[in-house]
């Protein structure tokens, strides 16, 4: 992938995070008492109610994907600004790609299982 494509994706995911992250913060802080929203269940926007709501669960998955890319690409930019060289840049990219995929798998597991909890 060209460097410019990676950075375009960085800006696109950044704007996506503003929207999806906005929805996420809204459901946690502005839909009811904060302690009720972070309780396992009991309120309309309690933890498990949010995961069971398909629209909010999809928003969380999108947010996970976008933040995953944006954060790890940000780290990549920092690391290749720190030191240059083909081996370094390739090594950094591969380690971050693997880390990103692992994070995505774990986060997606949480969303899928929480969505299916009885």
């Amino acid at each position, binding site marked *: 992938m060209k460097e410019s494509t990676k950075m375009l994706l960085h800006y696109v995911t*950044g704007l996506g995070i503003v929207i999806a992250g906005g929805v996420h913060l809204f459901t946690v802080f502005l839909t009811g008492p904060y302690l009720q929203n972070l309780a*396992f269940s009991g309120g309309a926007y309690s933890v498990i109610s949010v995961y069971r709501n398909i629209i909010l669960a999809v928003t969380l998955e999108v947010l996970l994907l976008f933040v995953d890319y944006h954060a790890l690409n940000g*780290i990549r930019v920092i690391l290749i600004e720190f030191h240059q060289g083909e081996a370094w840049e390739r090594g950094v990219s591969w380690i971050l790609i693997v880390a990103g995929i692992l994070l995505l798998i774990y986060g997606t597991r949480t969303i899928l*299982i*929480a969505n299916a*909890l*009885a």
Partner: protein
Amino acid sequence: MTEPLISELKKAFRGWFLPFKYNLERWAYALQRLSGIVVTGYFLAHIVETGNVVGGLSVWSVPSTDMARDIWTATFHFLDNPLFDTGLVVIGFMLAYHTINGIRLTLAEFGFLEGKASRPDFPYEAKSLSKIQRAIFWLSILFAVATAVYAINVFFGV
């Protein structure tokens, strides 16, 4: 290229995080980078933390709801203390700053708010940091402070 990594690292950190004697743009850059690193750290912890909603690392099929509830409630109580709450206030500040300054950077990346190219004249102020960009930078600081105050009210308010 022959420089040892440690001295390279020291030089890089000085350049990134000590923007003294430089203009506002450099401060914005240092803070954008610092806030990015802090929020990335929060993101990693948050994925691990929310993993406990379904029972933690070892759970890969739908567990009993009671077990998930117990583990999440224990996790929440473990994290619900002044130390982590203070951390969340800092993260709120960083996230708010990173958002608004990031919008400024996005606009600049696509050619907006750049100002017209012109002959450099004394005192050679950077043309790239136009008045509107300075305004957005200070707006991002204001928004960050407001978010921190809001977070203090949520976590420590009576």
